[in-house]
């Protein structure tokens, strides 16, 4: 049997040492009526070769899909480092003396995320962008007595969905959506301004789900009328190009950092991140690594501010999160270290330029973006279901249909370009559309 090292002879020796006649006695404390006497109907055991043949993989040849999960180029360094068993098979670093590797790497992840977002501090990761937003909203309600969480409708539909799930039983806090301008695709500023008040917190995604850049300058002018506000990020690559969201004065920058060194992985694991200001530290969710010193006075790292967390504060904890996405955060740290400031800027510029190239090419076919505001690396066009299906049948994924989530744009298709796409990809798509 794979992974089970005790031999039959070993088992006899162990039973003898315990002083019981057979293995059945190990389970004597389970009442007979609670025992399962059948054989689990589960296939196997399968050898490695058979397992491999069960999992063949084939991908489409041209993919313009994003929408919160992005295909970016990941240097070989990232997997080489993060597949090391010392990182991969370690537990949460509760014992600092033998976890300095994970701890220091998380400290570096926190440092780089805080820098990129323009905030004071970062935690060591959340599950994903959606739960990170939900936790930010929960944090806002802990700071002040709020009655309303305002979320822009241009925020990722799944993020809004999870936010509503988390708040479905909260007493007296309603989740309200601020609509977008049908012309520009940006948030409807006057409506947002009206919704923002002392008893509200609000969140705005930048760039938004349509890829459109929100007018954060204008938003920041009235943002302080709210008790708390945050910027949500679902394409972290944009941080390589845009002004750090923290410079607009928000309380939190939360979202998804899968783009930084993590593969699309058929949808997960993803990498939620959470950055905030010093004054909110003690209300923050998730694990935080702090720098310290050991008994010889040398620099060392450990988990800190643990009294916020569930294992100590239990029902009064700031969040129930325990396991996070540590390995994904490590990938992001290695990725950012590999790319450096110039590399990250370059990749971000490539993404934005690719989106321009695709927009221009589509315009020649008479397909224009639905929204007029500038975009980062995604944009919405109209494409009927039949055309999209036809493209997919030829191995081209032109984008993600968004009509289900936005009846305002029933035939909307979100198209995404990253540095993994090429001019040849664009040519293939245009050819198939012509």
């Amino acid at each position, binding site marked *: 049997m794979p992974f089970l090292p005790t031999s039959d002879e070993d088992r006899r020796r162990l039973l003898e040492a315990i002083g019981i006649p057979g293995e059945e006695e190990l389970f004597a404390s389970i009442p007979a009526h609670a025992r399962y006497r059948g054989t689990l109907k589960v296939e196997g055991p399968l050898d490695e070769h058979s397992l491999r043949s069960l999992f063949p993989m084939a991908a489409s040849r041209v993919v313009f899909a994003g929408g919160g999960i992005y295909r970016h180029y990941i240097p070989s360094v990232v997997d080489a480092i993060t597949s090391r068993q010392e990182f991969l098979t370690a537990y949460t670093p509760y014992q600092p003396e033998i976890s300095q590797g994970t701890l220091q790497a998380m400290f570096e992840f926190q440092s780089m995320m805080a820098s990129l977002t323009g905030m004071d501090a970062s935690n060591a990761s959340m599950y994903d962008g959606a739960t990170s937003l939900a936790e930010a909203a929960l944090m806002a309600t802990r700071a002040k007595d709020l009655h309303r969480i305002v979320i822009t409708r241009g925020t990722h539909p799944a993020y809004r969905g999870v936010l509503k799930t988390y708040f479905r039983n909260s007493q007296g806090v309603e989740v309200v959506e601020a609509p977008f301008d049908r012309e520009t695709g940006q948030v409807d500023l006057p409506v947002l301004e009206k919704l923002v008040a002392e008893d509200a917190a609000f969140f705005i995604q930048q760039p938004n789900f349509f890829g459109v850049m929100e007018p954060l300058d204008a938003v920041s002018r009235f943002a302080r009328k709210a008790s708390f506000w945050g910027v949500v990020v679902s394409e972290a690559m944009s941080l390589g190009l845009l002004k750090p969201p923290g410079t607009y004065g928000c309380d939190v920058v939360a979202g998804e950092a899968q783009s930084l060194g993590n593969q699309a992985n058929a949808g997960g694991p993803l990498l939620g991140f959470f950055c905030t200001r010093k004054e909110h530290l*003690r209300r923050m969710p998730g694990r935080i690594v702090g720098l310290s010193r050991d008994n010889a006075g040398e620099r060392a790292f450990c988990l*800190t501010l*643990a*009294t916020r967390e569930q294992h*100590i*504060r239990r029902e*009064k904890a700031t969040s129930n999160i325990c396991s996070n996405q540590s390995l994904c955060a490590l990938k992001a740290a290695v990725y950012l270290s590999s790319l450096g400031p110039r590399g990250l800027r370059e990749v971000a510029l490539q993404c934005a330029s690719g989106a321009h190239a695709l927009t221009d090419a589509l315009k020649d076919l008479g397909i224009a973006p639905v929204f007029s505001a500038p975009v980062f690396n995604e944009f919405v066009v109209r494409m009927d279901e039949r055309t999209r299906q036809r493209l997919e049948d030829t191995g081209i994924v032109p984008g993600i249909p968004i009509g289900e989530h936005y009846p305002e744009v029933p035939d909307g298709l979100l198209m995404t370009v990253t540095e993994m796409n090429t001019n040849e990809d664009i040519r293939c798509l245009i050819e198939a559309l012509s």
Partner: protein
Amino acid sequence: MNIPEQLRYTKDHEWAKIEDNTLRVGITDYAQHEMGDVVYVDLKPTGTKVEKGDPVGTVESVKAVSEVFAPVSGTIIETNAALEQSPELVNQDSYGQGWMVVIAFEDAQDLEALMDAKDYEEYLSAEAK
């Protein structure tokens, strides 16, 4: 264990010093010892009205959080701002510089429920058993 004669005590290990119509409150030497190194003290702001038994703040070590309760009903009129920067004062001088809040109490009768030093000492040794 240091249990000053002149102070009053609660079963939750707060000490109280009667100063005219107000009560200065902190946690006892026993409590600070049980907590270990205090790393953070969070106190309710001045002006907060509290009922006897309501929390007036929390004390944190690296592994525990403990609430500090109002020994009497009244209004918090002063808090120890020094603890913000120097929470270790709770360990170093729990009955002195480690004080936490001053409460202007409403009903002097509340004071009668508090233990004197001898009662508290007995209470501690009973709890230890």
